[in-house]
């Protein structure tokens, strides 16, 4: 009885894992042909640009604070 149960459980597990691996459409091609890196580079550039923009804004505000003698803490 116990053995039968184990067998059944094993069977169920293997079936469920087989289902899990059944062709889920993922963008394998997108990665293998390499062009996805272009998109990543574009996004990274935009985000870095935004960060630099924020950084410059920060410095400008610091300058204004200095002009008006405001200590920033």
């Amino acid at each position, binding site marked *: 009885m116990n053995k039968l149960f184990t067998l059944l459980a094993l069977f169920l597990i293997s079936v469920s894992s087989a289902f899990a691996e059944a062709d889920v459409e*993922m*963008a394998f091609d997108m990665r293998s042909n390499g062009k996805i*890196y272009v998109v990543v580079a574009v996004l990274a550039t935009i*985000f870095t640009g935004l960060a630099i923009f*924020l950084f410059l804004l*920060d410095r400008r505000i610091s300058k204004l*604070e200095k002009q*008006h003698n*405001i200590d*920033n803490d």
Partner: protein
Amino acid sequence: MGCLSLYLACLMKKFWWKILGVAMVLFSIIFGLLGKVPALPILNESIRNLYFHVPMWFAMILLLLVAFIFSIISLNKGTQKADLRANELTNSAIFLGVMGLLTGMIWATFTWGKPWTNDPKLNSVAIGMLIYLGYIILRQAIEDREKRARVSAVFNIFAFPIFVVLIFVLPRIEDSLHPGNGGNPGFNTYDLDNNMRPIFYMAVFGWTLIGVWISELRSRIRNIEYHIEENE
């Protein structure tokens, strides 16, 4: 050369957490798109939204937590700076929340079939957002600066726990489409794939730091405005 390194050291001392935040988000963008993700039906590649949509909400909550702390400080000490910080942190948090809603609606359209399901999490988030919209309106309605600081601090202190309950507690009572909801979340600890976990946390803390940065800039601008007004 020595001058440059001194400059860089000075920069790092002042900006280290801002640079860290930017680096973390950058990391999440790069590895979020390139990294390995589990192949799941329905979700497909959209599982990568975990790195971009979910951190909006997590960062929102963390910003609201910091705003909550500044509201307490503002009530205790009555300083204008704490009030401005609490206010701007809340504003940034609301912005992140709106982004979270919009991105969630896009994601839901392609996975759940429509942009707005009557998922308990969505409904309670809607209520939570309304509470914070009430906060914005309340602040605009009160002219007197000190009164506004006190009333909005009290509002914020009450609103935060309600928001946390709405988002994290109530959706667990009913069944939800969101993972980790409906039943005991302890059973769902394996929902988040181990490959995905570090990138996800990077995104959460990165966006939180950037949110704090933007809030800081905004509150400093308002501080300067007040200063100019007072010295006229």
